């Protein structure tokens, strides 16, 4: 069975000079929550935008394969892509305030999605909007139809965005840091909602986040991105149990785990910063920060298998051991 979303060797260039994504491969299966995790600038948002063909001006994408439910996304015209977007693939963003139009009511913005893609009457579309708002846990949905975005709290706005994304029954929801701007209590509510929708509607979710706590709690599978590459892919439990790539291992050691805090001991951290990747860069992008690096890391790096669905981009064999700290 082929994946719902199948991307192989995606490259995204801006202005021909800097490569934001360098050969990323990503498969999202039907009905799964797939987390794309990485730090700022690693190319995770650019990957999402290139799926939607929403790259900023000057951004160019190319790939060996980029298909959605058997359709080749790269060969679609702008019109055909617009027909897919918001319809079979929806996207929600980090800041709901900037993604909603401040000048239109919630009702008119939600109804437009449906009338535009599926036709039908405005009344029917508004009914659907009320139904979906109720479903995503918005109280008094009829009242919200006439309200403007600024009248809603951040959590409510994000719920409206989710309801709007669901108007046309999409098969794939791309969510780019959907809870980063929200308080932790609201974040938990929104993530629970996404999990319920996935279960009940069979929705596939590509969730982009930098938060390993979110990854652990909601993802079925994880792809870890670093400097424009997917450096490790694994089922969630396996990734947290036996991370292979030195970057993944470092990332996991940086997170303070409540209840397991040792206050007098420093947190793990990754030394240095993400390097600038110029044209003609070869080898492992993590080598300047990696304690295992040697001269061979400057050559082409193999993708190794650590399990049937677990691979990573590193010269080291699976289960290599960490050097003991002196």
């Amino acid at each position, binding site marked *: 069975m082929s994946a719902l979303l199948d991307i192989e060797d995606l490259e995204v260039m801006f202005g021909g000079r800097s490569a934001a994504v360098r050969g990323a491969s990503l498969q999202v299966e039907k009905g799964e929550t797939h987390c794309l995790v990485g730090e*700022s600038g690693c190319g995770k948002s650019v990957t999402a935008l290139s799926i939607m063909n929403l790259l900023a001006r000057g951004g160019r994408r190319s790939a060996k394969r980029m298909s959605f439910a058997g359709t080749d996304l790269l060969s679609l015209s702008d019109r055909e892509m617009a027909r897919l977007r918001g319809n079979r693939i929806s996207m929600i963003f980090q800041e709901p305030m900037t993604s909603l139009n401040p000048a239109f009511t919630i009702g008119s913005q939600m109804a437009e999605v449906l009338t535009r893609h599926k036709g039908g009457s405005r009344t029917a579309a508004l009914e659907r909007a009320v139904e979906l708002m109720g479903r995503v846990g918005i109280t008094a949905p009829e009242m919200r139809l006439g309200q403007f975005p600024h009248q809603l709290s951040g959590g409510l706005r994000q719920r409206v965005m989710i309801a709007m994304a669901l108007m046309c029954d999409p098969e794939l929801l791309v969510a780019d840091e959907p809870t980063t701007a929200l*308080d932790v209590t609201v974040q938990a*509510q929104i993530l629970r909602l996404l999990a319920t929708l996935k279960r009940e509607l069979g929705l596939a979710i590509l969730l982009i986040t930098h938060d390993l706590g979110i990854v652990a*709690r909601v993802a079925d599978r994880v792809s870890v991105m670093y400097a424009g590459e997917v450096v490790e892919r694994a089922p969630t*439990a396996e*990734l947290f149990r036996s991370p292979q790539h030195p970057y993944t291992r470092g990332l996991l050691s940086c997170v303070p785990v409540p*209840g397991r805090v040792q206050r007098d001991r420093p947190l793990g951290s990754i030394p240095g910063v993400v390097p600038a990747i110029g044209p003609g860069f070869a080898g492992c992008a993590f080598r300047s920060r990696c304690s295992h690096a040697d001269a061979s890391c400057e050559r082409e790096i193999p993708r190794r298998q650590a399990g049937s669905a677990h691979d990573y981009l590193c010269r080291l064999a699976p289960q290599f051991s960490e050097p003991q700290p002196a």
Partner: protein
Amino acid sequence: MSVAIEVQNLRCEFRVNAGWFAPEKRVIAVDDVTFSVPAGSVLGIVGESGCGKSTLARLILGLLKPTAGTVLVDGKRLFDLDRKARARLIQPVFQDPFASLNPRHRIKDIVALPLTAQGTFSRADIERRVAQILERVGLSAAMGERMPSQLSGGQRQRAAIARALVLEPRIVICDEPTSALDVSVQAQILNLLADLRRDLGLTYLFISHNLAVVEHVASEVAVMYLGRFVERNETDALFRAPGHPYTQALLQSVLTPEPGRGVPDIGLGDAMPDPANIPPGCRFNPRCGIAVERCRRVAPTPMARAPQGMVECHLA
């Protein structure tokens, strides 16, 4: 242990225009907050956005005038001191190192500014102190020559820390110092702050919405809700046995990196707190899962909680 900072009955009200013809509204951002922090320790302050934690920081820094209350540092009333004297005692580190550093100045001039503003340091002395503190926070002399835009987020936050420490203050107010940073860099900065506190004997007020971070750095934690401290206790005690239902909900909503546990149902409902519209009785009652009739009528008062904390809840 001596007390570094003592805050007594601090209160801050804003008057906001609700519209052209609507009556003026009163927003109580900080409502009768009292606490003290022993020298050399860290008080973590947690709460959701809009709970007043940043207003509290600005009050203590003297950037806002309180409606009532006093702050004592080393027994001196902070609001009686002039700006220069205050700056020698207490300094801030803010959340966004992209906004808090002047983009048109070199890093070393930014770090030197608190010294030059005092007007009592010689040029040679300033240069020596700036070089020292830059090295201490892990920035090379070459970094000092650069502009903020040439630094990464973590390096900028190091520069902001250097600026806060160059006057050798007693107290540093860290307002979400790592929220804008990536996790790998966040860990570097937290480790640096911990080293500096130990080596220089600093006292921190550490404001954050990230409970995992607060648990890691703070010796004592206060939970703020709609302008009040609703619970305060030693960190281990508070995390092990939270007394207030709001503290419990906050702790539950922390997503630890443990796969397979799913997202918890914290059952707080949709009634978002609004500081312009504080409910009667316990201010948390509309969101509280265990509220009883009394909670809707009578505001709870602080009650002692072991080992040396307090909680404001009728049912705790």
